[in-house]
């Protein structure tokens, strides 16, 4: 097991969560965001101070004074004198950034006056980068979006899209993320560059994960190629792709897809090497060693809860994976002894029975439980009977609807409506009646005039 996930020996706490190794995968804003998230989630524990310290050091290397001040406020003097507010540095950095910003602005104005397209684009882009470094994400987003008008080659477009996507992901504005991913993917030649392609797929997977669309996220993440390496580490690390991808895949893909996309997929297999515990998990799940798989999951839980993008979805993913495991276990058998199953899943029989009952009522398993002997019997659906029943009820529904239709048509035809309190001549009544005016319903007489009863195919097929 990798060093960063080595907490089997420890219960509850993520005391031995190896922050250094974990965070070394990231750079730039991703690093800071994640550190702050970890600090937030582990409030009161030593991990918090560790994370805040690293965040502080990292922030001093950037120009983001606002965030620096926040972090110092959160540290609250707990880390000693060297971690208090360094006003000198703040002032210097602010002054430096302000002057740089002015310079960029004035350059941009001159470019605009001179109408040099490429330079304008570079100017906007630089301004965006500057805002991004300052932590002013909204302005950065706007600047990047403005470069769109000045992009000439597909390379420009892709660069612009990537910048926007990165900013939008941080802003958690997922609508824009989706938009710009779409834009980038439709640029010609983009598939030729595997790194860019992977970046787009990874961003797409990330935003789908946040949108809780696990199946689509799994599919996208499995298409990321290992060549992306650490080039996208200011958004997402390859290790994350492995973790998110395999969790989503386990939760939402069925066995054949799991095999195709995850296990036989060479690219993803390489990525999985970076997260060996995930590889163990996937393989034991696929090989139906559910006890081992579930144990792995439980072990992973604390560190996953510290992950910025995943922590909200962890309970849901876990529930989905567990349900899928239960369904898969039961599938090949015509009768299952619940006691044996409880051992395999390492739960109590009563608990297991309740979970299975829930799954049966949801329709995920078609079986029945004999609570006296604690055995589950698979039930074969009698297709013939259900088909007959369906046919009869469809006929019943058709008859009912047609009868109602005929009556209503008759009512409209005789103008059989109760007039309002002022008698039938008021304007409102006339307007309402005109809704029922059969002639005004553009051709087709009875059938269409009734607003399409939804008899549709059934009705027409019955019309001999």
């Amino acid at each position, binding site marked *: 097991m990798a060093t960063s996930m080595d907490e089997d020996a420890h219960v509850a706490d993520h005391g031995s969560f190896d922050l250094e190794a974990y965070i070394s995968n990231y750079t730039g804003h991703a690093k800071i965001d994640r550190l702050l998230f970890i600090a937030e989630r582990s409030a009161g524990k030593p991990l918090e101070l560790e994370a805040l310290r690293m965040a502080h050091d990292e922030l001093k290397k950037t120009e983001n004074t606002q965030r620096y001040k926040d972090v110092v406020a959160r540290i609250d003097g707990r880390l000693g004198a060297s971690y208090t507010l360094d006003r000198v540095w703040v002032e210097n950095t602010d002054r430096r950034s302000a002057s740089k910003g002015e310079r960029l602005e004035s350059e941009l104005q001159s470019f605009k006056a001179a109408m040099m397209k490429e330079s304008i684009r570079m100017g906007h882009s630089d301004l965006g980068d500057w805002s991004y470094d300052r932590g002013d994400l909204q302005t950065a987003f706007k600047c990047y979006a403005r470069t769109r008008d000045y992009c000439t080659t597909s390379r420009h477009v892709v660069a612009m899209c990537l910048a926007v996507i990165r900013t939008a992901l941080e802003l958690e504005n997922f609508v824009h993320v989706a938009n710009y991913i779409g834009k980038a993917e439709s640029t010609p030649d983009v598939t030729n560059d595997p790194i860019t392609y992977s970046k787009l797929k990874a961003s797409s997977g990330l935003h789908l994960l946040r949108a809780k669309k696990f199946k689509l996220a799994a599919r996208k993440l499995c298409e990321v190629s290992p060549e992306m390496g650490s080039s996208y580490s200011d958004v997402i690390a390859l290790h994350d792709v492995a973790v998110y991808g395999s969790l989503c895949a386990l939760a939402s893909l069925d066995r054949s897809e799991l095999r195709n996309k995850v296990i036989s997929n060479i690219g993803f297999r390489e990525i999985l090497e970076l997260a060996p515990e995930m590889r163990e998990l996937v393989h034991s799940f696929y090989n139906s060693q559910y006890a081992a798989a579930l144990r792995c999951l439980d072990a992973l839980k604390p560190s996953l809860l510290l992950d910025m993008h995943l922590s909200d979805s962890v309970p849901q993913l876990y529930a989905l994976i567990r349900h899928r495991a239960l369904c898969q276990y039961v599938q090949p058998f015509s009768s299952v002894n619940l006691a044996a199953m409880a051992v395999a899943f390492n739960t109590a029989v009563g608990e297991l029975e309740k979970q299975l*009952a829930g799954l*049966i*009522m949801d329709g995920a398993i078609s079986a*029945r*439980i*004999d*609570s*006296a*002997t604690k055995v589950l*019997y698979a*039930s*074969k*659906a*009698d297709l013939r*009977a259900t088909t*007959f029943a369906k046919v*009869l009820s469809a*006929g019943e529904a*058709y*008859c009912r609807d*047609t*009868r*109602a*239709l*005929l*009556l*209503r*048509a*008759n*009512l409209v*035809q*005789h*103008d*059989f*409506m*109760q*007039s*309002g309190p002022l008698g*039938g001549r008021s304007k*409102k009544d*006339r307007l*309402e*009646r005109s*809704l*029922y*005016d*059969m*002639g*005004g319903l*553009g051709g*087709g*007489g*009875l*059938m269409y005039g009734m*607003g399409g*009863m939804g008899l549709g195919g059934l*009705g027409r097929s*019955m*019309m*001999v």
Partner: protein
Amino acid sequence: MEALVTQVVALSSPNDLSQLLSTLKNAETVFTQNYQHIAAALQALDPAQHSLGFAFFLHHLAKGNLPMPDASFIDNASRFFTLCNPGQIQMIPDIFCATAHIYKEHLLAISNPRRGILPLRAGLRALQLNPEVLTPLHADFFQLCLLSKCYNAAAPVLAEDIFDVAPQQTSCTPTDLFLYCYFGGMLCIGRKQHARALELLLQAITAPAVAGNAIVAAAYKKYVLVCLIHAGQLLPLPKYTSPCVRHVIDSEARPYNELAAAYVLRNAEKLRRAVDQHSGVFAADNNLGLVRQVVSSLAVRSIQRLTQSFLTLSLADIAANTGLSGAEEAEAKILRMVAAGQIRAKIDGRSGMVHFADETRAGTGAAASSSGGLWDSAAGVAALDDRMRQVLELGKRLQQAHEMVSQDRAYLSKVTARERSKYDLGAAAGPAGVVGPAAGMGGDPDFSPFTVGAGSNL
């Protein structure tokens, strides 16, 4: 007065009926002046042969200052309705219906609604051109059945479908339709035919309307409750429900919608709370009985779902799963359900386990053949055949109605006018648009050739 009586007797053969009708209509003053003699004159007339005249006399007698209730009037009217001649009656629908209304009020006044059931049923049949036509007497008839609790008397009338309201022939008004649907729905609920009740109540709710209506609101409330009992959830109203009806429903029936929402959550506790919260409203609408049925149906439905997931289950578990208070209550409930045929189960008293009969598993060879047996027998195939024939007939009928509308002159002229206005560059569209609805309003003369044709075809 004597002259009138002799005229009636003389002119009561089929050829002279129209002459008789005009004579009687012009004899208003005679009736009002000789009011005291009308009752006596009635004795001379025979309800079967002189139905037309009898009806006029009866009507004027009723219209006047008759003390309510009047036993002789009721006797006369009962005889009349039972024995009247359809041919003569159908010429004077409005008088006939007015008389029926007053007759009903008299019966209600003496608190003997039962008396009127058979006469009104006969009268109903007399007025109907064919069994698919609605008459105002339907509403009165149903009301009497409801008040006298003779639900089964209404069964044959309930079973017929109404396809036609013929306002000229039967002097039907929209209120009659609504009352028919509402009372009919209540009768079906009384007979526990929930599907038919839903059908009737839905007709009341989806009838085209331009204004809100208290009857429709009451019908909707019952519809919600019956829907919950029958289908377990509130089915959404079809899209052709008129907007003003939806408006009325939103403003008046909110407690019912909340009850439906609580029911769908399948939580007995929440349901009970919702019921208690709105019990005042339910009581005011006289729906408490139905609401109680709804609450018990929730438990029934939960147990039915359990039968699909379990082969055997202990009574304690059943009680826990369905929110009942304990094993004894669960046992009582299951016994009742088995007696009502809603589930098939066996209770093992020693172990407190309930065995649910397995309806889907083909356990043994015999069971396997019996599971398909339902559809292998001649009876099953015959039922299927019958249903298919019904569907085809209805389809043919729909096609006929469709063709008739397409060929109708008024409709065609409107469509061509609209098409023409589309190609004119907007100038003619304005007037054409206004002409459209106005022509629709005064459409009765246009439609009359259609309705006569429809009456004879359908």
